[in-house]
């Protein structure tokens, strides 16, 4: 299957994208596919474009022709783009004319339109399948490229153009990221309309845009959903589908969405850029049914070993692009890094196994915060951990032992809070500090780090 063929099945007059005062019809998306595109057969192109409809028309032209294309967020710096370009051995960059690559070495030729790009290539072999390369969030070090295909990305996409025609998705994600691409593909392949507000608009403005365009389907992270339910006009959206993903989902936000949108089906999707969509849950309870371990609903195997969640998706490459390092074990299992707990008939998420704290979608390494705090003259020992929070899921908290036990505790807490805010990014700063007289040490003399 290639994207162009999927779109050709839709009615001629389908409107696919609603952006600010603009309707983009299917034919405008498919028109970029011309004869000269075949010159790009077998090419490797890096795409970094801010306009969703332009990007969609280019992806539609390239899918099934080029060997691989990478989708890079328009918010990415030129320096990082050039690193991706070099590590992935890309032959050309297609980007907005606002991006400049002066002073950067080894950058492949940069183009601002598809025709000029195609004209500069000599065709090679058309691949069996075009690889779609998606960036990871960069949880561990620099972001990496993960290899997908239209098949692996749209495996869970429901294709029903009759029902799809009445659906209007609201876009709240960056379309180049895994979750955003899921929304984009689900919407266009089913012939639904995708409402794309300017990315930099405030949430209130985006919600207004969704109300004006009769949005029926929305997908967002739990942190963003908590913000959505706090906006004042959101109840004017006649929502039929609410999708959550990317962070731990709790009962409170599920109930809040259910109360606000009584007609909506609420779906929690468990997915990662590496493993693709693992499974989804729509029974309005946190966690997922224990029965999924025996009967995985979407054909992606799931197992729990020593309180850790593993998934096995046979349709996804298990190596980062341009690297020989596999992120799957021999049996094909990918360690999700999620700590889980089995409680009766339910598997519940408890946080990250490596202790990484997810503060409203931003990752925090406890060690980084600990190292900064240990440099403060008041601090003898410190243990940083995740403190549950109803708005951002978690915040950063610390137990601290002071060098001088006579120090005023209240004053010390204040000093350390201010210090952490000055020394660290806002989301890494300490939201809560408990002064403790001593720490329990393990046999190797390290502070015992409890998994949540």
């Amino acid at each position, binding site marked *: 299957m290639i994207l162009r063929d999927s779109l050709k099945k839709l009615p001629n007059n389908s409107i696919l994208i609603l952006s600010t005062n603009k309707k983009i019809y299917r034919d405008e998306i498919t028109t970029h596919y011309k004869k000269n595109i075949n010159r790009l057969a077998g090419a490797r192109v890096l795409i970094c474009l801010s306009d969703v409809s332009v990007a969609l028309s280019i992806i539609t032209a390239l899918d099934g022709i080029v060997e691989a294309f990478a989708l890079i967020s328009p918010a990415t710096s030129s320096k990082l783009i050039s690193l991706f370009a070099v590590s992935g051995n890309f032959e050309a960059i297609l980007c907005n004319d606002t991006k400049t690559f002066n002073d950067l070495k080894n950058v492949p030729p940069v183009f601002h339109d598809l025709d000029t790009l195609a004209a500069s290539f000599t065709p090679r072999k058309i691949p069996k399948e075009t690889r779609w390369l998606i960036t990871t969030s960069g949880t561990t070090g620099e972001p990496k490229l993960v290899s997908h295909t239209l098949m692996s990305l749209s495996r869970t996409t429901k294709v029903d153009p009759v029902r799809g025609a009445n659906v209007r998705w609201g876009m709240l994600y960056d379309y180049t990221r895994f979750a955003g691409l899921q929304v984009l593909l689900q919407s266009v392949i089913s012939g639904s309309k995708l409402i794309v507000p300017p990315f930099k608009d405030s*949430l*209130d403005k985006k919600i207004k845009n969704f109300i004006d365009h009769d949005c029926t389907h929305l997908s967002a992270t739990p*942190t963003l959903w*908590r*913000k959505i*339910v*706090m*906006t*004042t006009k959101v109840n004017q959206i006649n929502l039929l589908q609410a999708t959550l993903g990317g962070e731990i989902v709790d*009962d*409170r*936000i*599920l*109930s*809040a969405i*259910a*109360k606000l949108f009584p007609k909506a089906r609420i779906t929690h999707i468990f997915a990662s850029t590496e493993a693709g969509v693992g499974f989804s849950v729509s029974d309005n309870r946190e966690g997922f049914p224990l029965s999924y371990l025996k009967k995985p609903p979407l054909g992606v195997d799931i197992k729990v070993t020593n309180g850790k969640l593993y998934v096995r998706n046979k349709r996804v490459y298990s190596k980062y692009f341009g690297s020989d390092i596999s992120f799957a074990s021999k049996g094909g299992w990918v360690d999700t890094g999620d700590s889980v707990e089995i409680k009766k008939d339910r598997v519940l998420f408890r946080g990250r196994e490596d202790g990484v704290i997810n*503060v*409203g979608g931003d990752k925090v390494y406890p060690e980084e915060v600990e190292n900064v705090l240990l440099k403060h003259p008041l601090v003898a020992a410190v243990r940083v951990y995740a*403190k549950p*929070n*109803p*708005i*951002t899921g978690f*915040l950063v908290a610390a137990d601290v032992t002071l060098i001088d036990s006579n120090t005023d505790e209240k004053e010390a807490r204040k000093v350390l*809070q*201010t210090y952490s*805010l000055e020394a660290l990014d*806002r*989301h890494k700063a300490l*939201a*809560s500090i408990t002064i403790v007289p001593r720490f329990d040490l393990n046999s190797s003399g390290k502070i015992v780090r409890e998994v949540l």
Partner: protein
Amino acid sequence: MNKTRLSNDQNNNLRLFNQILTVYKEVYSSQNKGKSAPEIKNETVLLDSGLDSLGHAILITRLEEKLGYDPFSISTEAYYPRTFGELVEFYNANVPA
């Protein structure tokens, strides 16, 4: 209504309003490089009050330290206050017995 004879509930609400406002101002200032907070009324929409999600998350943690309870973990109702007044009322309605 006679201003000098507020009901207990109104008194509690007023006291809580001032307590929450004090903490709000501290958090605002710490999250906005020392700037002072804008004027806050009961009808101020929380998302327009100058604190983002992270700011609100910190506000709730600080309030837990100051007031000794977190209504979000006490209340079984799936409720997210939208205005400052609703936030105060939420704290008032969930004072631990």
